[in-house]
C-alpha cells in the first residue's frame, strides 16, 4: 500500500473551514442522528453525545503508557489531537446490557415478546482506523456467521461513520504493525484529516455526500492532499510499540505450556478490564431476571469476559480454573484462534488493553516474550 497516494478511494475530497464541522454536527442532529464522539470527562476523553463543536475536547490530549492514562493540555487548539480513550464504538453497537426479550406468564400459557425498543440512528464522529477495523471484525461476528444478531444489526445498519485519520499516536498504539492503521482506508462515510485551519473531508458514500450537501466547502488542492498524507505518515513513523504477527498463531499453539503463562498469571488480576475495553471482544452472558410479582421475566444479555471465572463454568466444572488458563485463553483467542474463526486477527492494535490494564500488562510484550524464548 502506498501511504502517500491520493486520499479518497472513491468520491470527492473537499476542504472545509474547521468551525464548519459545527454545521455538519447540526445537520446530523436535524436529520435525526444521535451524534456521539470524543468528549471530555473528568479524567479521560470518552465517547458520549456531541451536541456542538464545543463538546469536542479541543486543545486536549492524552498521555498513555501501560497501566497509565493522563489528560494533558495541548499547546494548540486541535480538535482531534489525541489517541483512542477507554471507550469504543462497541458501547453503542453492542451495548453492555441489552434486554433480548421478555416472557409473560399466564394461567396456562406464556407469551414471548422480543425487545422492539426503537434503536437510535447513531452518527459516530471521530472514528479511528483501528476502530473501523474493529467494527468490521464485529460485523463478521454478529452479522456474517450462520446467525445474525438482530440487535447489533439494527444499530449497525443505521450508523453513519465519520472517521478521522490519526495525527497523533499514543505510546500504546501499534496499529501500523497490525496493518489496521493509522490511515483509515474503508468502512466510513466521511473521513477527516485535521489540517491547521481546515479539515480535509473525503466523501466516501452517498450517505456521507448527503450530509455534506450545501455545507460550504471547496475542492482540495494537491498541496493539501500531500500535507494530509504526510500527517498520517508521521503518525505511523512515531509509533513505538509493535507486534510481530509473522506465524503467530502457530507459534502460540506450539507454546501452550510455555513458562511465560505462569509468570504473567502472577501479575494478572483476572479483572476483565482488557476484554471490556477491547473493541473486538464480543463475549457475553445471558441471564433470566424474573419480575418480583412473578408475572413476567426478562432475558438480559451483558458483556462478559474469559477473565470472569464464571464464564468457563459449565456442567462438570470450570474448564479454565486458574488465572494462567484465563490469560492464555485471552491471548491465544485474540492472536491465534480468532484467525481460525474469522480469518483475521482479533487484535487491531488500538492499545486499549495495554493502557487500561490496572497493572499494565502489555499484550505486545507477552507475545514477544513467547516468541523470544522460542527463537
Amino acid at each position, binding site marked *: 500500500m502506498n501511504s502517500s497516494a491520493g486520499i479518497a478511494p472513491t468520491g470527492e475530497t473537499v476542504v472545509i473551514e474547521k468551525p464548519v464541522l459545527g454545521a455538519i454536527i447540526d445537520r446530523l442532529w436535524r436529520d435525526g442522528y444521535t451524534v456521539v464522539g470524543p468528549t471530555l*470527562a*473528568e*479524567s*479521560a476523553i*470518552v465517547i458520549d453525545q456531541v451536541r456542538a463543536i464545543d463538546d469536542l475536547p479541543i486543545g486536549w490530549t492524552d498521555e498513555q503508557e501501560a*497501566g*497509565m*492514562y*493522563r*489528560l494533558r493540555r495541548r499547546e494548540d487548539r486541535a480538535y482531534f489531537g489525541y489517541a483512542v480513550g*477507554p*471507550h469504543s464504538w462497541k*458501547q453503542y453497537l453492542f451495548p*453492555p*446490557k441489552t434486554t433480548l426479550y421478555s416472557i409473560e406468564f399466564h394461567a396456562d400459557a406464556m407469551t414471548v415478546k422480543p425487545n422492539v425498543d426503537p434503536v437510535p440512528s447513531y452518527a459516530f464522529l471521530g472514528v479511528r482506523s483501528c476502530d473501523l477495523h474493529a467494527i468490521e471484525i464485529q460485523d463478521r461476528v454478529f452479522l456474517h456467521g450462520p446467525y445474525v444478531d438482530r440487535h447489533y444489526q439494527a444499530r449497525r445498519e443505521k450508523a453513519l461513520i465519520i472517521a478521522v485519520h490519526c495525527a497523533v499516536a499514543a505510546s500504546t498504539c501499534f496499529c501500523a504493525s497490525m496493518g489496521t492503521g493509522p490511515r483509515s482506508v474503508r468502512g466510513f462515510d466521511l473521513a477527516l484529516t485535521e489540517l491547521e485551519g481546515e479539515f480535509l473531508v473525503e466523501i466516501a458514500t452517498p450517505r456521507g455526500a448527503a450530509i455534506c450537501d450545501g455545507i460550504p466547502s471547496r475542492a482540495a488542492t494537491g498541496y493539501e492532499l500531500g500535507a494530509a498524507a504526510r500527517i498520517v505518515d508521521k503518525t505511523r513513523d512515531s509509533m513505538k510499540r509493535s507486534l510481530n504477527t509473522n506465524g503467530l498463531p502457530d507459534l502460540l499453539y506450539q507454546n501452550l505450556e510455555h513458562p511465560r503463562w505462569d509468570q504473567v498469571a*502472577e*501479575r*494478572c*488480576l*483476572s*479483572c*476483565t*478490564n482488557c476484554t*471490556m*475495553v477491547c473493541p473486538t471482544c464480543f463475549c457475553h452472558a445471558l*441471564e*433470566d*431476571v*424474573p*419480575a*418480583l*410479582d*412473578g408475572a413476567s*421475566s426478562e432475558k438480559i444479555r*451483558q*458483556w*462478559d*469476559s474469559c477473565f*470472569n*471465572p*464464571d464464564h468457563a463454568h459449565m456442567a462438570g466444572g470450570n474448564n479454565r480454573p*486458574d*488465572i494462567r488458563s484465563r490469560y492464555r485463553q485471552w491471548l491465544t483467542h485474540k492472536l491465534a484462534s480468532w484467525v481460525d474463526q474469522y480469518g483475521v486477527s482479533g487484535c487491531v492494535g488500538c492499545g486499549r488493553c495495554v*493502557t*487500561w*490494564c*490496572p*497493572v499494565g500488562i502489555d499484550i505486545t510484550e507477552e507475545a514477544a516474550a513467547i516468541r523470544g524464548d522460542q527463537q
Partner: protein
Amino acid sequence: MNVPRPRLGVFKFASCDGCQLSILDCEDEILAVADRVEIAYFLEATRRPLEGGFDVSLVEGSISSPEQIDQIKDVRERSKFIVAIGACANGGGIQGLRNFISIEESIAAVYANPSYVKTLEKSRPIADFITVDLELQGCPINKYQLLNVIAQMLVGAKPRVPDHAVCLDCKRRNIVCVVVSQGKACMGPVTSTGCEALCPAHDRGCFACYGPSHQPNTAALASRFESIGVPSDQIRRFFHAFYSTSQEFVAEGLRHV
C-alpha cells in the same frame, strides 16, 4: 395460583442494622411481593413475636457474644433456607477489626466500665456456627441483589449470586478506571461484585466492602498499590477493614505492616 405464601424471617446479630435498612428501603418493591411472601418476623419493621418456622431467613450481623451462638442455632432449626446478608454476617464486618488485636485491648479502648461486657474473643461469621445456604455480601447489601434473589426463589430457580471482580461491572457501566486515569488505589480487581461499582461511579476507589472476589490475586494488586505510593499500613487496612475472616485478605494485609 393458590400456593401457600412462604414465611420470611429477618434476624439481627452484631451489626449496625444497615442491611435491614436496605430491606426497608425496598418498600415499594416489597408491595409487589406482599401477597406472595409473609413477613413473619422482622423486628425492625413489625412487632410480631418470634413463632414457628420460616421458609427463608435473612440473617444480618456477626456472632460476637456467647448467647448469640444459641440464638443462631435456634434460627437454623426454625429455617429451611438461610441467607446470610452483609459483610458482618459473612466476613465479621467492621467490628472484626478487633480480631487483629487482643480482646482486652479493644474492650479497654471502647468501654468505660468493661466488667459488664460479655463478648467472644473474635467477631465471627454466621457460617462458623451453622450451615448457611446463601451468602449476600456487602456493607450494606445491595437491595436490588436481594430482591433479585427473592424473585428467583419465588419462581423456583436456584438463586444466582455472582462473585466476579467489581471491575466487570465498572466497565459495563462505562466508568473510567480511577487507577489508570488518576493513580488512585482501588480494590475493585479483588473485590466481589454486587454493588455495581458504586465507588468508582463516584470517582473513588473501591475499599472492598463486598469482600474477596473469586480467586483474588491480592499480591499483584498490593504490589501495584506500592508502586503508586500507597503507604504500607494503608494497604493493610484495605485488606483488613471488612472481611477479617477472608484468609486471602488477612494474609495479604499481614504482609504490609
